[in-house]
Each structure stands twice: as C-alpha cells, then as structure tokens.
C-alpha cells in the first residue's frame, strides 16, 4: 500500500506542477516518462533489449501529425491512430525479432528501425529534414482548446497517467506473471506448456503501442514530428533513461527520463552545450559501474535493507 500512496503523492505533485514549472518542459518530461516506461515493459519485465524503439516513438509522431494536419482528425483520434500504427509496426518487427535472443534480438530491432528511419527520411509526407511542421493541437473531446498550454498539460497528463496505469496493470496481471516467468527462465516456461514467443510478441506490441502513444502526444505538444525522434540516438537514449532510473522497477524509467531530459535542457544553454553527449556518457558509465540497479532500484534496496 506504500507504493500506491507514493503514486497518489506523485499524481498530486503533477497536478500542481504547472504552477511552479514551465508546462512545455513538464509535458516533454511526461512524454519521455511514458516512452521510457513503455520501453521498460519489454526490457525490464520481458527481458528483451530492443534497440529500435525510436521507430515506434518517431513513427507514431509522423502518423499522428499527418492524421491531424492533412486529414483533420480530432486530436485524440489522431493520437490513437499513431499509437495503433506503432503497434502494427511492433507486430511486424516483433514477429521477426522475437525468434532470436540477446544481441541478435537487439540487432534485428536496430536494423528494422533503421529501415523505418530511411522510409521517414525519404517519404514526402514527413517533410524530410525539415520535419512535419505545423501540426494543429485541436480541441480535446471537441471542447477544450489545446492551444492553451495549461489545458494541453492536463490532456497530456491524462494520456501519460493512463498509459502508465496500463503498464502497471500489465505487469501485475496473469499475463505479467507469465512474462516474468519467461524472463526468469524461458526454457522452464516452455516446458510448462507456454508458447513463449506469443507472450513476448504481445509484450513487444504493447510496448511499441505505448511508445507510439508517447511519441504521438509529444508531436501534438510541439506541433512537430522530426527525424531526431526516429533516429537510433533516441533508441539509445531510452535505454539510458531506463537503466539510470532502474530497470524493471515501475517508477524507475520515469525518474530516469526526468533526470536526462532536465539535464539536456539545463546544459543546452550553458557552457557545456556542446558536451551534452559526453556528460550523458559519463553518467551512463557511472550508473553501470556504481549503481547498477538505477536510482529507484538502489533506493528500493536501501529501503528494504533498513526496514
């Protein structure tokens, strides 16, 4: 019950956060928190290192952007459309990748994501290097004008909280238990009669869909879908966020992404602007060498030891 109290406290803080912080930054934090949490579903709870999640994040941004700008879909339908297509991409990529394990799984996801990236670079609808600009925010449920940053913030908060709750539920579901068993001992799960590939595939599709929802929402916030969201750098960054926050913990990826995004924002204007990758690299090395369980993982270990 302590955990649910923690979640309520976090939710309360997020509800009042725009009073103290710039809403655009908060929305960016939320989107990345959802992205990293979705990624953690497949890495932390499924034991599969995907190196191609940028394809879902960036891809959904383009699909949603196109649906809103060109087809004039309502905002929430556009986001659902983008997330749904990301899920279908996940189905296609996952079908191929889950046949292999470990580094081979990572390589297949990376290769497929690179192909998706190439598609986004060369398709006319994405605007290539310029990105897909001028995505209209529209109205939430046809009533609330999302041009207002504060309204937009609560819209984004609702999406990200819903996505996060779905992840929590998935982890604590009959499916989540089988997934944990597969992560722990795949052969044993198979010998108990589970077709492990189908469980991994479902986890992968869920993860891709939610990563897509995060990317789609981000594209509405910034009214822009750009190549950098689909680039493999983004696939790497989400690994870093998840590891830093705590692999396989529910809150970890959100914390990790908050640290990384805040750092990037702070450093971008200072003397270290050109050194952002170096700073992130140092943090990554320090994390892996000294606190491998990540911020939340280490805190949890300390908590358990002392109580």
């Amino acid at each position, binding site marked *: 019950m302590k955990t649910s109290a923690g979640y309520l406290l976090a939710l309360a803080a997020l509800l009042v956060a725009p009073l103290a912080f710039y809403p655009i930054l908060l929305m960016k934090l939320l989107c990345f928190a959802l992205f990293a949490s979705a990624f953690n579903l497949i890495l932390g709870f499924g034991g599969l290192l995907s190196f191609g999640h940028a394809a879902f994040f960036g891809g959904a941004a383009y699909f949603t952007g196109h649906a809103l700008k060109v087809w004039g879909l309502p905002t929430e339908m556009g986001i659902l459309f983008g997330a749904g297509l990301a899920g279908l991409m996940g189905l296609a990529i996952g079908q191929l990748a889950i046949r292999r394990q470990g580094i081979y799984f990572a390589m297949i996801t990376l290769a497929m994501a690179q192909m998706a990236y190439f598609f986004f670079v060369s398709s006319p609808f994405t605007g290539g290097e310029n990105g897909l600009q001028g995505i209209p925010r529209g109205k939430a449920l046809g009533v609330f004008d999302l041009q207002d940053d504060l309204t937009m913030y609560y819209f984004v908060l609702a999406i990200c909280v819903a996505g996060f709750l779905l992840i929590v539920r998935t982890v604590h579901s009959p*499916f989540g*238990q089988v997934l944990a068993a597969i992560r*722990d*001992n795949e*052969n044993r799960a*198979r010998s108990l*009669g589970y077709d492990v590939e189908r469980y991994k595939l479902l986890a992968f599709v869920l993860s891709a869909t939610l990563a897509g929802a995060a990317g789609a929402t981000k594209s509405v916030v910034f009214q822009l879908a750009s190549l950098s969201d689909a680039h493999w750098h983004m696939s790497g960054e989400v690994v870093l966020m998840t590891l830093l926050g705590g692999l396989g913990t529910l809150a970890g990826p959100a914390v990790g992404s908050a640290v990384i995004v805040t750092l990037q924002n702070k450093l971008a204007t200072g003397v270290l602007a050109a050194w952002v990758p170096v700073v992130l690299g140092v943090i990554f090395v320090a994390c892996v060498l000294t606190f491998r369980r990540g911020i939340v993982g280490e805190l949890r270990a300390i908590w358990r030891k002392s109580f």
Partner: protein
Amino acid sequence: MSQTEDYILQPRGLTKEFKGFTAVSAVDRNIRRHSIHALIGPNGAGKTTVFNLLTKFLVPTSGKISFNGRDITAAKSAEIARMGVIRSFQISAVFPHLTARDNVVVALQRKLGLSFQFWRSERVLHRLHDRADELLGMVGLEHFAGATVADLPYGRKRALEIATTLALEPELMLLDEPTQGMGREDVELVTQLIRKVSANRTILMVEHNLGVVSTLCDRITVLQRGAVLTEGSYAEVSADPRVKEAYMGKAA
C-alpha cells in the same frame, strides 16, 4: 494395439547427429505406464540429449516418438507439455525472482486460460493460492510460500521444481538428475518425494546416484555413447559386466 496401452512413451530409432558426431543413435525404448524408469550411463552417454529430443528442445535427426500411441515427433515443446509430458532440467528450473507460491501459480494458471489477459488484475489468480499451498506442503515448502526463490537453498529449489511440475498433473514426468549436487538428507527427501508422486504416473529419470536408482526404479536403461547398452531391473543391470566396463573402463 494393446502394446500402446501398456506403454506410455515409445521412441523409435531416435537419432541425433551434430555435424558428423552422433550423440544419440537409434534409441528404441518402451516406457511402461505407471513405472519409474531410469536412464543411466557414463558422462557424455547422451542421457540429457535423449531428454531434449523427447521434449523437442532438440529436433531429432531421424526417428519417431510416440506418446500414448500418438505420434508427437512433429509437436513443439510447449505442445508436448500441454499433452501432459512435463520435464525438469539438470540445473534447477525455477523462476528465481518470483516467490515460491508464484512459481507454482505460474504452472497452475495455464489451465485457466487467462495468461494473455494483460488488462486483468493478478488478483484473479488468488483462487489458485490454496492449491499452490497444498502442493508446496506436499514437498515440505509450506513455510516458504512467500519467500523469493533465489534465496532458497538448493535442495528446496529442487523440491519446488517438483511441486511446480506436479501442478500440471502430468501423466509423464521427465526428471533430469533430480538429486544432483545434493547433500545426503536432501537426496533422501527427494527420493521419498519422487516415490510419493509416482502413484498413477510414469516417471522417466536421468540419475547418477545409483543408490537412488536402486531404491526407486523399476526398470533401468543404460546408455553408452548414445546407444542403448542394456536394459533391465537394477539386479540385472548391475550384474552385467558390460555396464561395469562402461563406467570403469576395461578391467586389466
């Protein structure tokens, strides 16, 4: 055929070659229903490979496997498990990050058919806890239900593995060295356990501990270099000079 009623598992000409090396060659066996059958042999004789072939963790190069008179040569591992053939592994096959109870619940929940329902709360599995605790009690783990399995001693993990296997009510259990690496008390415990669970079941086990084999097993197949050397009761097999030779090398 009445033959298939007496015999639960019948490998025929079971062969596995790895790039020119024949690990298992032409194994023909009849495993009698409701018996405890041991598979023994020196290191490298192909015992575990036979297990892997029977449960399709490896694909046979040639040969057939029939289970209850039904050809299962083309079935996948998980399908064979669902037919009622559950195997264990040489190294303990548990889910270390789950609790002991959840290890058993993972096995129990398969028959509920909820295992793809990611939107349901795990609370729907709570109704399996009584049965899980009963199974844990059967193997002496009633006080460890809530313990994380990684923290359990080795012998307890092997016992848990048996409880998890029993949860599926298998017709045929394949146990790969169930007493390997155990102290004497644990060996005694597991031996009694296997005897207890063998009622109305067939057990095929790979075992190095000949004491365990002699007290438990009705029939013993000796493998040597992938082929069947001999088969019989413990008395017959242990009196066979070829078996001694296989283990000890040729007497001078």
